[in-house]
């Protein structure tokens, strides 16, 4: 009963209000729905089905005299029930009169056993020693002991079931006709025998009827449906007894009615059945023992195309689906379109081509790389729930499978839960998430994406040294590269780390702080530092206020180089031909210290040709050095340049030493110059904080009256290369100076 409140106004309302309530604010109370449906059905049956009762009492066979030994009747299966041996025979006698042969409508193309195709139905093998799972009471039985017990049992592998299906489906069954006196006599005899033996041991005695426990007994239980197949020997011939019924759940108890049950019996070759079944069951066991997982080209979760997988939709999907996988957790997703057969086959090929290893301890990515990268396939065939979730953050695929049943279903919403007693299997395998998702995207013909929630990909990163914004492609490539790293977080972070690694990516955060990703190669690893630091009003790092958020390494020492390549800083950019061997020309040396005029030796300049441009205020000056470098030293310098890892960098003004301005912060600079008959070449090396850049200019000249003049600026060919070469060695200039100084 509800408390009084302002919503009482909605009560006892006109249909315009209730219609609106239903449409806009549905009760969404699904927990009781199934119960109410069963209540309705029961009430309906009570008022409308008097005939059935009559039918029950008329039966000539004492079908309700279910002796207590049935309590001990064991069954297989996670949730199986059922009617055992001889009882089925008794049932058979009654049912034959009322039930037409059920298998008449079976598909004639494929022969299937009357109790269904073993390869398709997950029959389980009864284990008499397992615990009882639940009891199903026969609701309309006049006898107190009308109930069945459900027992758990081992699952039969698909391979085994396939073999059994082969045998069962191809056998010619002869139904024991209801009017065959002989058959009735024989079965009855067997029933009577069973009852007389067993009733003597009534009180809680365990199942004498199961004395022959070696008789295979198969149970299939899905949702509320039970199929039980048992063979037994009645002396003159073998009988295969097939019992089929549905039960209902109410208040945690399980009920069925006699009328729900159909029983069929077939004459079989008992010995053939028993030996064949046992052979299949035991032979397979041997095959199953190998411990090392060998997938033989099939993914551990089976052939992808054999299930109808879909990619779940989001909140805007047509239907929201809730699957309770256990008490605590509920898997929530939107419906999606089943993947086409063709695509499904391609995905299967892809999955089957991979090597699957169960993850021992999936590595997690550092927090700064974590996205919520997931990609999921789900298949729900009415009884089996299978979910393949690919997780980008730890590069795993998790296969979650269990049986499920419907709790409630509406337009736009469905609730399912794991069938009580059915095992939930969760297995996790290592994958390369990104490459897999890329391939899957290709197959599906759409971007299955992984960058939606990814803060790394969604930030504007730039290189710290030259402030070049990374393109989307570059970010993605770097992300993919880093995602494949096997990170190991350092246990103790140093309190301070300065942004001085060779390769530094940075991004500006919303709150004005900067985040740096330092990447530094070690001989056997790459060190990563993820640092936040504050900048002052001028955007300058003041060197003190930083926080190391993450410090760690990965055992791959090529990461820095690979990122440099992604950034177009290939470390093996070739040197321009003109400087590949310095010894072939007369290279001269000049030291330019921009901070000291004294070091600019204008007084000894050989070539100093000026020209004015259209504005009369610019000039071009090429300076030919005066100090020739001896050949042995040139050789050393040449070797040094050769052995340096150069990468190309876009030309930026700060590298333009021809017109150095006040802002230029190079700490030092040297020039090597060389002249042939009509050109002057100048190579400049400029030292930066963490690197050294190299640039070559060439200019043609002409000679007049013993004086050399540079050609008209319109004709000049300036740079020999249109790129600046960079290396990460800030010591290069010092080393060259040392060589020259001898």
């Amino acid at each position, binding site marked *: *009963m*509800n*408390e*009084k*409140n*302002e*919503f*009482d*106004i*909605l*009560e*006892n*309302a*006109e*249909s*315009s*209000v*209730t219609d*609106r*309530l*239903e449409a*806009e*604010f*549905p*009760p*969404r*109370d699904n927990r*009781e*729905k199934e*119960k*109410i*449906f069963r*209540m*309705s*059905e*029961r*009430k*309906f049956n009570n*008022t*409308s089905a008097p005939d059935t009762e009559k039918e029950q009492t008329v039966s000539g066979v004492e079908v309700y005299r279910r002796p207590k030994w049935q309590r001990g009747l064991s069954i297989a299966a996670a949730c199986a029930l059922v009617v055992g041996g001889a009882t089925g025979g008794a049932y058979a006698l009654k049912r034959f009169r009322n039930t037409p042969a059920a298998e008449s409508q079976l598909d004639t193309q494929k022969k299937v056993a009357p109790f269904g195709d073993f390869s398709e139905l997950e029959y389980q093998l009864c284990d008499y020693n397992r615990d009882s799972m639940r009891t199903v009471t026969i609701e309309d039985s006049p006898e107190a002991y009308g109930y069945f017990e459900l027992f758990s049992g081992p699952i039969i592998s698909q391979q085994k079931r396939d073999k059994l299906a082969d045998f069962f489906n191809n056998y010619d069954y002869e139904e024991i006709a209801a009017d065959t006196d002989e058959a009735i006599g024989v079965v009855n005899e067997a029933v009577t025998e069973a009852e007389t033996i067993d009733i003597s041991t009534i009180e809680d005695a365990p199942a004498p009827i199961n004395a022959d426990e070696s008789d295979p007994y198969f149970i299939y239980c899905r949702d509320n449906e039970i199929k039980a197949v048992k063979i037994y020997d009645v002396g003159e011939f073998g009988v295969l007894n097939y019992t089929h019924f549905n039960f209902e759940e109410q208040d945690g108890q399980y009920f069925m009615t006699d009328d729900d049950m159909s029983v069929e019996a077939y004459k079989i070759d008992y010995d053939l059945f028993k030996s064949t079944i046992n052979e299949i069951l035991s032979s397979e066991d041997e095959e199953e023992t190998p411990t090392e997982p060998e997938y033989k080209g099939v993914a551990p979760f089976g052939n992808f195309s054999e299930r109808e997988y879909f990619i779940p939709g989001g909140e805007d999907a047509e239907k929201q689906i809730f699957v309770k996988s256990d008490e605590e957790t*509920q898997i*929530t997703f939107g419906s999606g379109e089943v993947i086409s057969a063709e695509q499904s086959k391609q995905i299967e090929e892809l999955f089957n081509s991979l090597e699957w290893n169960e993850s021992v301890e999936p590595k997690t990515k550092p927090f700064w790389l974590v996205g919520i990268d997931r990609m999921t396939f789900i298949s729900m065939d009415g009884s089996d729930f299978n979910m393949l979730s690919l997780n980008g953050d730890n590069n795993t695929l998790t296969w979650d499978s269990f049986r499920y049943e419907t709790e409630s*279903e*509406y337009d736009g919403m469905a609730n399912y839960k794991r069938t009580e007693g059915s095992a939930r299997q969760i297995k996790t395998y290592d994958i390369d998430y990104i490459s897999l998702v890329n391939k899957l995207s290709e197959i599906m013909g759409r971007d299955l994406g992984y960058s939606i929630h990814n803060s790394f990909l969604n930030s504007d990163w730039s290189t710290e040294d030259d402030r070049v914004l990374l393109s989307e492609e570059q970010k993605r490539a770097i992300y993919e590269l880093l995602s494949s790293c096997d990170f190991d977080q350092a246990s103790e972070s140093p309190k301070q780390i300065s942004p001085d690694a060779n390769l530094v990516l940075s991004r500006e955060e919303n709150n004005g702080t900067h985040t740096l990703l330092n990447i530094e190669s070690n001989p056997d690893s790459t060190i990563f530092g993820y640092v936040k630091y504050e900048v002052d009003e001028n955007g300058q790092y003041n060197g003190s206020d930083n926080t190391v958020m993450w410090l760690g390494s990965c055992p791959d020492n090529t990461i820095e180089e690979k990122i440099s390549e992604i950034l177009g800083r290939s470390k093996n950019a070739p040197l321009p031909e003109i400087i590949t061997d310095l010894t072939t020309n007369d290279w001269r040396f000049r030291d330019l210290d921009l901070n000291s005029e004294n070091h600019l030796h204008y007084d000894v300049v050989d070539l100093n040709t000026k020209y004015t441009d259209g504005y009369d205020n610019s000039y071009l000056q090429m300076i030919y050095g005066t100090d020739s470098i001896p050949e042995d030293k040139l050789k050393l310098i040449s070797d040094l340049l050769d052995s340096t890892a150069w990468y190309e960098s876009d030309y930026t003004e700060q590298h333009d030493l021809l017109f150095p301005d006040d802002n230029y912060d190079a700490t030092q600079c040297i020039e090597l110059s060389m002249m042939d008959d009509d050109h002057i070449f100048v190579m400049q090396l400029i030292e930066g904080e963490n690197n050294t850049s190299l640039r070559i200019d060439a200019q043609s000249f002409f000679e007049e009256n013993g004086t050399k003049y540079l050609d008209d600026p319109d004709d000049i060919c300036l740079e020999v290369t249109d790129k600046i070469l960079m290396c990460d060695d800030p010591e290069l200039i010092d080393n060259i100076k040392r060589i020259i100084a001898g």
Partner: protein
Amino acid sequence: MTDQQLRRLLSSSPEKAHRLIFDEYYNYVYTIVFNRLRSLGTPEDIDECISDVFAEIFTKYNSESSHSGNIKGFVSAIARNRSVDTFRRLNSGIKASVSLDADEAVQLSSDERIDEQAERTETAHALLDAVKSLGEPDSTIIIQKYYYGRSSEDIGDMIDMKPNTVRKRLSRALSRLRDILREDDEGR
């Protein structure tokens, strides 16, 4: 599914047809029954009444019945009658249920004064409008809590939210709702 199709299904597979009818009209019946019994009945009374309604639907709506056309109207009539029936029984303390046929039910609603009912209906719609304007998930939280009387835990399950969060949202949403209603009132 049309009436005709349903009738055909009823004759071939009554259980399937029952299931279809049930799934289709469960919310509808629930809403009607709940609306009538909300402040009087326990959840068990309501469940009982809903199952009575469906049992009656199953019984009366069969393949041979001459009922024509409008299933929803038929369902609605039974749901209203049954809930009034239950309402009376609960109200009077009479345990046994007495069947009411459709004619009596019509009389019952006409008992009420037309103008009063019209105003109530108008207020009810205004309230629903105000709740709607809160937006999701707040409107669901408010309705489930104060109309359907669900616990924060249940609501949390429904909309995948922690009970604590539901409680927090609830108090905020309620004060917002009161603001909206006050404005509405002043605006009139």
